[in-house]
């Protein structure tokens, strides 16, 4: 996937050392990646990180300052957008309101110079495949948000592009529909077998749908990997903080043991953690420690967590009930910091009351220490 791991593989779409500047501002800073045929590839990052700039460069609406973009191993830098074999699904969909649904799908086919009956056949089969048979004569306004979404995608897919570029297409939909479209998009990609490049700031969209995800921050890629990789083995503090829910402590390394490090926070709380991200922290280094809510064991009885590497006694602030994903917010007695803890699905803690004393514990291996972030994006448990 990453060209450092697999140089021989051929990519449907590849970017090499892509740089884009706007004046003094570097929007995209030396980004390289390759996407194999049929992959669902997401670029995940906060707004303003440069992900849309990358997509617009691939589509041909922006020229890179330097670097190369290859589609099927041919550079496309000199190719205008209308001749590039990639198509884009815009954030606001950009369906043509002056044309009917069928005309929208036919537009690209007509540009290819296909015959009338050919186009009619393809439009009909595309409408069948997206579950809107016989809707060709409807106007765009008659369709629901989800249906418009499918038309926007079908309009591109009938052209059989080398890759489909999607610019946060679910952003405009309401929550319920968005959840539904996530699954539908994934199914549609399986059905058509086209390479999808999907831009989003919503980590759950990226994790649910993608084969591979690139996490982007301030113009560069922090990490490229499968959703599981990013979640369980983040390379950097940014990825650990951005992907999934997490608890964070900031502290200084005091002591290095053979299987972990001892970190002391500013409040004087000692924590045991393991170095992550391929770094070996030295004593005295500033680090951030991340612990997933589901790695923390919660108990009302102190003995249940007595064997754990890290232990905290706290008071329950509130229960954030969300069915199987319910969590508890617990205030650390010693520091006053708040922790996010996943509740077991058995429901055995559903009787917990506000202000009740609880005991928390987690292993050293589940606490990952990274060199401290300069800019803290997430709130800390305690310092």
């Amino acid at each position: 996937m990453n060209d450092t791991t697999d140089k021989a593989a051929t990519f449907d779409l590849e970017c090499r050392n892509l740089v884009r500047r706007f004046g003094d501002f570097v929007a995209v800073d030396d980004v390289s990646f390759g996407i194999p045929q049929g992959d669902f590839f997401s670029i995940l990052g906060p707004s303003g990180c440069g992900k849309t700039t990358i997509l617009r460069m691939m589509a041909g609406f922006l020229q890179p300052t330097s670097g190369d973009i290859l589609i099927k191993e041919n550079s496309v830098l000199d190719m205008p957008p209308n001749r590039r074999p990639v198509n884009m699904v815009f954030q606001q969909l950009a369906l043509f309101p002056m044309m009917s649904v069928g005309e929208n799908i036919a537009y690209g086919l007509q540009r290819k110079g296909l015959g009338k009956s050919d186009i009619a056949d393809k439009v009909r089969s595309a409408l069948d495949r997206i579950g809107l048979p016989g809707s060709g004569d409807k106007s765009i306004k008659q369709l629901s948000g989800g249906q418009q979404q499918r038309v926007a995608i079908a309009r591109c897919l009938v052209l059989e592009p080398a890759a489909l570029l999607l610019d946060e297409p679910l952003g405009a939909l309401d929550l319920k529909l968005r959840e539904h479209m996530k699954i539908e998009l994934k199914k549609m990609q399986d059905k058509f077998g086209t390479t999808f490049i999907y831009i989003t700031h919503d980590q759950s969209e990226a994790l649910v749908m993608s084969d591979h995800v690139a996490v982007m921050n301030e113009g560069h890629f922090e990490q490229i990997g499968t959703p599981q990789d990013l979640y369980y083995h983040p390379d950097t503090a940014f990825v650990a903080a951005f992907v999934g829910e997490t608890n964070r402590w900031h502290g200084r390394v005091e002591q290095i043991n053979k299987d972990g490090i001892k970190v002391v926070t500013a409040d004087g709380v000692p924590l045991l953690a393991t170095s992550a991200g391929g770094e070996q922290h030295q004593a005295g280094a500033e680090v951030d420690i991340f612990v997933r809510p589901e790695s923390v064991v919660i108990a009302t009885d102190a003995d249940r967590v007595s064997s754990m590497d890290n232990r905290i006694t706290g008071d329950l602030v509130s229960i954030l009930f969300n069915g199987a994903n319910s969590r508890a917010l617990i205030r650390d007695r010693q520091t006053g910091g708040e922790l996010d803890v996943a509740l077991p699905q058995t429901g055995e803690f559903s009787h917990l009351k506000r202000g009740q004393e609880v005991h928390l514990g987690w292993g050293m291996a589940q606490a990952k220490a990274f060199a401290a972030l300069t800019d803290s994006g997430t709130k800390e448990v305690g310092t």
Partner: protein
Amino acid sequence: MNIQTASRLSLLLLLAPLGLWLVVLIVLPHVDMFLISLHEKTAPRVFEYGTANYTEFFTEPLYWRTFTRTAVMSIMATTLTLLIGFPVSYYIAKMLRGRLKSFLFLLCLVPFWVSELVRTFGWMILLRESGVISNVLQWVGIAQGPVEMLYNDATIMIGLVYTSMLFMVVPLVSTLDSLDDSLVEAGYDLGGNAFTVLRRIIIPHAMPGIVSGCIVVFMLTLGNYLTPVLLGGKNSLWFTEMIYTQFITRFNWELGAAFGFLLLVLSSLIVWSGLKLSRQTLTETMG
């Protein structure tokens, strides 16, 4: 008094000035005009009703020829204004951002700070035999003697397009402004070239603006008096001149009123067929 009648009353009161204006200044004079146009003079100060004024229009070639000429030239001026105004509007609405955009928009407005009369005299200063352009041409050596550029149809056309430009640019800029850039990008992305994007996306989107701009420009041109008279002189007759002559010089209000009515019918007819051709409705383009 309950709320429903109160709100109906306030609506009536709000509409009253508009209604008064329409009835007193537009409807009443036109009804009177129509009645006058049906007068036939049988003896001094003796009239009877008849259609003689209208028959005279169709039997006298000068009248109906000037009439057709005015219509054809107005359509030409409207088309020319559209052809020049469209790229200008597209540039202002889509290519420019921020202050430069408002500045260029303002530039279109600036000529309207001086009266139409003064503007037209400006053109005369440029184009007359002893005018600026004629002198420059002689000085450069392109022309041997003074060149007269006034008093022909081309000059009228220049003047009409010039005075109409703003009324085309304003509706066009506002409709083009509302065109989402991503629609144009999608048009290219799906394989369209500049021509297909223009034909399939930009023009259909701008159609209400094009039609309303054209209606306004056409009406203004057809009813223009100053520009054709001053720039066209005696060589180029405009139908409004005929109406003026009947009313003021010939003192023949009956024929003048008939001409006025014919002009109204003509403009309504052309606007209606323009709407039919472009498949637009009046409410759509003006709303």
